């Protein structure tokens, strides 16, 4: 018995009206410092997210070149001599030999191998220099051979993702925190500010803190099995033994430790939200303890575990108050000249027209995975309310962590699937006519 399509008899082939349409969806690529996100326009989340970090072994590839390991599976695998690198610097591409390979991998791994069939929309930070933008369009047309291309600002896209064409986008990324005021879908260039106090900074702070109080940071690959131990007691674990010459590189160890730090950020670290300022002395801390939310335990891969009290607030404080950052490691930002988040907002708003100010402050959007730090939005909210008192200041952050993480991508996805967007694509023909400089004219 068939309940389906009763008009079709079983011995008659269905008509073969074959499909001939060419509705091809665009690909949206949002390359960040930590992750590269790619997916089809019109979908609500990126299908493919690969780490921007890649592994490479010099001399192991063809003709003595370097052999690259891209994607989660490969980059985390334990290989002697594999260095972990990242092609980005301050949110923009620094290594043009590698970045396009990663982009391509992000698209081909889960989406499609036919790059030439789909228009490509990419995002860029608002401080991307024009040399880089031209390089980007060159790569996508010459190397990827895409039929059409557009370069959109991350800030604008993140605004779109929250349904705002006008507002102030606070994006907490891996490499930095950036503030982008947007109006009618255009970036107000004057008001763009940023500071290098993003997720990487936070990881460094936590690492420095661990070092300062002699907490041994281990990584999962070092441990074969662990046994429960009491807090602050030395770990009781079986460690992986490496033959001489087989040890992973320092950069690999650091990369793997960063994953543990990420877990710490997700589960233990917290932003101080008051009351009052974060207690700075032990005495203050003791008194603040009474009203504080108490300790949170964290277990390291080797089983070593500690309960963190005010320390877990202190490591994040540098984001808002740079002078309180830990400076016991190299390459830390200057605690005195770096702007904290509230100062950044302040500076950004200073350069915005007075008429627009109210409109923009009414739509403060917080995005970026770094903003998922426990208590982060509350703190930003408090800082803004204190700096700009008034009933019309409104801060919004998507409650859904997926939306917060991929806001830039999602905005791109929305943009590229809009009917009105079709006229904005830079087609291959236009590129051939005008050269890479067209990106400056068309992608504002």
């Amino acid at each position: 018995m068939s309940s389906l399509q009763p008009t079709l008899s079983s011995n008659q082939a269905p008509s073969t009206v074959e499909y001939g349409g060419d509705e091809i969806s665009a690909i949206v690529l949002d390359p960040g410092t930590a992750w590269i996100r790619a997916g089809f326009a019109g979908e609500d989340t990126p299908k493919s997210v690969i780490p921007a970090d890649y592994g490479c072994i010099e001399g192991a590839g063809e003709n003595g070149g370097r052999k690259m390991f891209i994607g989660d599976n490969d980059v985390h695998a334990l290989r002697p001599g594999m260095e972990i690198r990242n092609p980005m610097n301050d949110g923009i591409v620094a290594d043009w030999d590698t970045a396009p390979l990663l982009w391509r991998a992000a698209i081909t791994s889960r989406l499609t191998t036919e790059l030439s069939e789909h228009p490509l929309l990419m995002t860029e930070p608002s401080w991307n220099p024009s040399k880089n933008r031209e390089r980007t369009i060159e790569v996508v047309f010459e190397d990827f051979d895409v039929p059409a291309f557009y370069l959109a600002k991350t800030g604008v896209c993140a605004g779109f993702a929250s349904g705002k064409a006008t507002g102030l986008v606070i994006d907490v990324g891996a490499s930095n925190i950036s503030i982008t005021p947007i109006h009618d879908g255009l970036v107000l260039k004057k008001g763009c500010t940023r500071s290098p106090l993003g997720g990487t900074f936070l990881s460094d702070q936590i690492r420095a803190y661990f070092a300062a109080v002699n907490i041994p940071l281990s990584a999962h690959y070092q441990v074969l099995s662990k046994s429960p131990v009491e807090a602050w007691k030395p770990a009781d674990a079986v460690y992986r033994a490496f033959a001489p010459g087989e040890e992973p590189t320092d950069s690999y160890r650091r990369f793997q430790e960063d994953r543990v730090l990420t877990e710490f950020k997700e589960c233990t670290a917290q932003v101080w939200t008051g009351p009052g300022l974060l207690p700075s002395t032990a005495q203050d801390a003791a008194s603040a303890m009474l009203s504080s939310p108490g300790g949170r335990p964290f277990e390291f891969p080797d089983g070593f575990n500690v309960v963190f009290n005010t320390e877990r607030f202190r490591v994040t404080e540098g984001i808002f108050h740079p002078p309180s950052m830990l400076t016991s490691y190299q390459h830390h930002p200057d605690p005195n000249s770096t702007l904290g988040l509230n100062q950044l907002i302040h500076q950004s708003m200073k350069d915005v027209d007075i008429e627009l100010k109210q409109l923009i402050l009414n739509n403060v959007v917080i995005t970026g995975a770094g903003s998922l730090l426990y208590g982060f939005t509350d703190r930003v909210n408090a800082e803004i309310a204190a700096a700009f008192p008034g009933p019309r200041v409104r801060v919004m952050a998507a409650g859904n962590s997926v939306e917060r993480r991929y806001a830039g991508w999602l905005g791109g996805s929305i943009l590229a699937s809009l009917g009105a967007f079709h006229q904005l694509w830079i087609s291959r023909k236009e590129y051939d006519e005008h050269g890479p400089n067209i990106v400056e004219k068309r992608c504002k």
Partner: protein
Amino acid sequence: MTIFSCIIYPGSQTTLAQLGLPESFTPPKVRILSRMFPGIEEGTWTATKIREAREGEKEDLIAKQKAAMGADQDEDEGDEDDDDEGEELDEATGEMRSTVDGVLAKSPTDGVADEDGAAAAMVGEMSVPKKDEAPSTPAKLRVQESTVTEAEEGDGEGDDDDDEDMGEEGVYVEDEDDEEGAVWCMKEGKVVDWGCFFALLQHVHETINPTFHTPILMLCPPNFSSRDKELLTQFVFEKLKAPGFAMMDASLAVLWAYGISTGTVIDVGYEKTDVTPILEFIVQERARESIPGWGGDAMTRHLAKLLPDMKLEEVEQLKKSSICEILSSGSLLPTTGSVNAAIAAGEKNRRTTESDGMDLDVEDEEGSFNVAAIVAAGKTHEFLAKKEKEKRGEFEKRLPNRDRENNTFWLIEKKKPGEDDLIIDENLPVIATLAPSLPLPEASGETSVVAPSVSVPTITETGTEVPATEISDAIAPINPLVLPQPPTAPSEDEAARRQKEKDKRKEERRATAIGLPPLAEDETYREVEVGVERFQAAGCGILHALADNIWRVMAKVEDVSRRAELWESLIIVGNGSRVKGFKESLLATIQSKYYISPSSGTIFSSELPSNLSTPMATGASTPIPQNSSGGPSQPNPLLVAATTHNSHQQNMYNPMMQQHNHHHHSAHSQTPTTIKVVKPPEYFPEWKDVGFEEVGFLGAQVAAKVLFVVDQGASQGFLTRVEYNEGGPAAIHAI
């Protein structure tokens, strides 16, 4: 009532398919190996290998074919399918045909057995006289004309049956045993050869032979890209002419089968393992991983490395046998010492001396694989050692597998062509006995050959030593139901041959007596003994690799608060996980490496009371205090609550913001604090027998029923032809 729908589940090794949904959901009816052979013409594919007839075969075949054609002309008429045709011609050629039942009973992994089985069933009534003797030709051969190949472009409406053309052009034979040149169209869950893959689908489709109004549900491996899905959709509508088509993620199907909405599916496949976290039926696309290189095959290869004397197929069978087991990480491999201890317990009961000994010892101390094979040479030593062994062997037999040092399994083998003239090896099971050198003073005789991680089989017969043949063998002393073998000396003479025949039959009878499946005519059973290597399938590091990957996948799930749920609902499926003890060991590995034990620090911290002072009424955030089997002691629920429940502090600035925080930080803490495996559903009796490794297929049946029958497209659960005509292949993404 049977509901018409057709389910196809392609995999790297085996493709499962079934037509119709019986009242109770059953395991897949059709299993086909996922490989095709390039046809004679470029771009065409066949299900079995077709090659040009070899010298000598050719004339023979043509003659037979001609004869057959006349006889079978009538019977051929009704048949449309070229497979059947091949089959019938084969039947007609009589002598080359092995028994129909035998083919049907062959194990699913064995060549094209199933496809044959299906075809053979149709022509089964023809009652071709069976031949008892083994075929004298090198392999089963089937004749097929060159023009009838299963073309990729074939439109499935039946090929012409031009029997008359036969034999005029080149003569080609279908050679079932020849695996050479086979193209496996999927590798690591990805289609590597689309032409071949489509040909396979076509072949599957023809095998199950659905009507035109049968919609198709296909389970797709997670590695399929959007483009792959579009290609498939196009193929299904334009070549298979299906009226309706739906695709379902294979991992999601597992969840359907289990009847739960949230879980982590760990699908251990042939050359890869997929780890897929699913929240409320939503596959976490970004977190999911497909781990290439770690699957059942990795274990086979590792075993093969440990047992260099066994062929890969033999190792594969060993892996599938019940004696291959992965012991939990803590337990030591059984050594002579442990076996002795176990034997000592039962010592008073029995004392027998029988059977044959072995001279080969492999040392294994405290888990570290330190192998030394010691061959005793001196006559007295040998005798004593044998005595000792026999005693031990007898007791050892009664121990459970995991306490025994050696164990045996039945190996199914293809007979070799012309085997009758050779020494038949089924009477001479391989012994690769492993025992530590220390505990047996008698055995540590004068000569000791040290061969690290190699077990060297030697040959012994009762009393007499036999020179090594090309099949290096010795008599196995151990089989629960088996009496010791009568000695068989290699000889060419008639008496010995008859003896062998007898023995062989006896052996087969024994095999069937202990519940082994019957064999095809060209297969034999051989009893093989294996040492402690059988416990080391996971020595390749698969457990650690998978544990690391599972943790990583979990860490990539964006919603931190849901990770705990995912850890609590692990589902391990896939045929790679069939190895005994695999699931338990994998769990134990995760447990020992990633389990977060409740911190002792919070017990003493003074702020615990204040911490509990503002509990929110969100039941979801309290971890369910359940524990995985055999895990550490249960955490104190109060303690867990204290450590996971961050009290929700007052937000003095903007109460509106609080709403968000309650939602996504409610169970904000490190995971996993509990690791659990979901119990398989109990209401599918047919599945209980075969195991739940392929449970995705069950899920697909449930889904097919829901999509095609219950729902009937009301909520756009599948793509209809009309929709396809409008939207094209990309329309599949809207489903």
